[in-house]
C-alpha cells in the first residue's frame, strides 16, 4: 500500500499561476488554488516549492498573492528539481516516499521519477483533483495535523536560534521558556494517541502498538492512568508529543508504556515525565516498575530509565517473554524537574 503524502512540492510557472514569471510580471493565480492550498494545509500536508525562477521575484509574487506562508523550505533557483526535493526531505526529516510533486512540464516530472521513483508525480493539469486523491486524504485530521506547518516553521526558527547560540545546550534550553503540560488522555486525543504509538520508534519503551479500542478502554479503566503530554515554548507549540500509560495495582505502579516524539529528543522530556511518575508512586506509597522491550532502536529510552535510577529486577541481560525486561525504580533522594522547563499538571 502506498503511504499517505506528507509533503507536496509545487512548481510555480503554469502550475500555481498561469504564465511564466520571467516573461510576464502580471501572472495570475490559477482558479481555486488558494482554497486548495488552504485545505491541504488544514489536512496537515506540508507544502513546498521546487521552481526554476529568480528567488526574490518569485517570493515577492507569492507574498503579493498572500500564499507565501503556506510553503516551508521553498527551493527556488536553477538547480535540478529532484535535488530540490531531496533538500526539502532532508530539512523536514521525512522520507521521500511520502512526497508528491506537481508540475506542468512532463520533462520535469520524468526527471524526478527517474531520480526518485518513490516520489508521486502529478500533472498540473489535474490540480483540481488534488483534494480527492486518496494519498492526499489522511485517515483523520487531528489538532496536530492542523498545526503541523506552524510547528515545523517554529522548529525552523528554533534551529536558527540554536545554531547561532553561544553557550551549552542547557543554557540554550533555558532561553526557550518551555512548558510541559500533562493531562489525562481524553476521547478527542485518541487519534493523536494512535498516531504517536505508530509513528514513534526511538523514544518508545516497548514498541508495542495498540488498537483504537484498547487505547479507548484505558481512558475509563479504573486500573490505569493514561496521560498525554503537550509541549510549547516561546517559538510556538510542539503539539502533543508524549504518552504515559500506567497500570495501578494494590502495591505497585507499572509503566506499561512511555513514549515521545523524536522532535523533542533533546529536550529532556522523558526524564521530566519519569520525575512525575516517580513522585506519584512515592505519594501513593507504591513500588514503581516499568516494562521495557529492546526493539533495536530504542536504546536512548533504556538509558533514560537507567540514569533515572531504574534497575533490572531479573538476572542481568536475560529478557523474558517477548523480549520484555522489568525495571524497578531504586533511585534515592528527591527527584526534581529539569530547571529549564515548567511542569504543569492538568486534571480532567
Amino acid at each position, binding site marked *: 500500500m502506498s503511504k499517505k503524502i506528507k509533503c507536496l512540492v509545487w512548481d510555480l510557472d503554469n502550475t500555481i499561476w498561469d504564465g511564466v514569471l520571467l516573461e510576464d510580471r502580471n501572472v495570475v493565480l490559477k482558479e481555486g488554488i488558494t482554497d486548495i492550498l488552504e485545505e491541504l494545509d488544514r489536512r496537515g500536508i506540508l507544502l513546498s516549492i521546487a521552481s526554476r525562477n529568480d528567488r526574490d521575484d518569485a517570493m515577492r509574487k507569492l507574498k503579493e498573492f498572500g500564499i507565501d506562508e503556506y510553503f516551508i523550505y521553498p527551493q527556488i533557483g536553477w538547480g535540478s528539481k529532484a535535488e530540490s526535493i531531496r533538500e526539502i526531505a532532508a530539512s523536514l526529516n521525512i522520507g521521500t516516499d511520502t512526497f508528491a510533486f506537481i508540475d506542468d512540464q512532463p520533462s520535469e516530472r520524468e526527471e524526478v521519477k527517474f531520480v526518485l521513483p518513490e516520489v508521486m508525480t502529478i500533472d498540473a493539469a489535474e490540480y483540481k483533483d488534488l483534494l480527492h486523491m486518496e494519498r492526499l486524504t489522511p485517515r483523520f485530521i487531528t489538532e496536530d495535523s492542523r498545526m503541523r506547518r506552524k510547528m515545523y516553521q517554529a522548529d525552523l526558527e528554533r534551529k536558527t536560534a540554536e545554531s547561532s547560540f553561544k553557550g551549552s545546550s542547557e543554557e540554550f534550553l533555558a532561553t526557550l521558556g518551555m512548558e510541559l503540560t500533562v493531562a489525562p488522555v481524553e476521547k478527542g486525543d485518541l487519534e493523536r494517541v494512535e498516531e504517536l504509538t505508530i509513528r514513534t520508534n526511538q523514544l518508545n519503551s516497548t514498541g508495542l502498538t495498540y488498537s483504537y479500542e484498547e487505547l479507548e478502554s484505558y481512558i475509563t479503566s479504573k486500573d490505569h492512568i493514561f496521560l498525554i503530554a503537550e509541549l510549547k515554548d516561546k517559538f510556538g507549540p510542539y503539539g502533543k508529543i508524549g504518552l504515559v500509560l500506567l497500570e495501578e495495582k494494590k502495591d505497585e505502579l507499572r509503566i506499561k508504556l512511555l513514549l515521545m516524539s523524536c522532535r523533542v529528543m533533546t529536550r529532556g522530556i522523558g526524564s521530566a515525565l519519569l520525575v512525575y511518575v516517580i513522585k506519584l508512586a512515592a505519594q501513593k506509597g507504591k513500588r514503581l516498575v516499568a516494562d521495557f522491550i529492546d526493539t533495536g532502536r530504542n536504546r536512548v529510552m533504556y538509558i533514560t530509565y537507567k*540514569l533515572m535510577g531504574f534497575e533490572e529486577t531479573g538476572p542481568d541481560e536475560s529478557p523474558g517473554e517477548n523480549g520484555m525486561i522489568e525495571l524497578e525504580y531504586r533511585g534515592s533522594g528527591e527527584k526534581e524537574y529539569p530547571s529549564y522547563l515548567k511542569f504543569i499538571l492538568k486534571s480532567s
Partner: protein
Amino acid sequence: MCYMDTREKIIEFFKSRGKGDGLTYDTDLFKGGYVNSLFALEMVVFLEETFKIKLKNKDINEKNFRTIDSIASVVEKYTQGDR
C-alpha cells in the same frame, strides 16, 4: 604507547559538546543538568568506541554515571585487563 588519562578523555568529550564550563571530575552530572538521555546515549557510544569496550546493561546506571570519576572507573574495569 602513551595513554591519556581516561578521565581526561571523558572531560574532553564533554568540552567538545559545549559542556565543559565549570566541569570537574567530581561534578554531579545530573544535578548540574549536564546529561540528558540523548547525550547519555552519545556518551555510551563514545565510551564504547574510544575505549573499544562493550558496556553491559548493568553498568549503565545512575550511580556509575553520576560523575566523570565514576564513569572512568567503569571504563577502567574493562580496559585494565589490556594494559
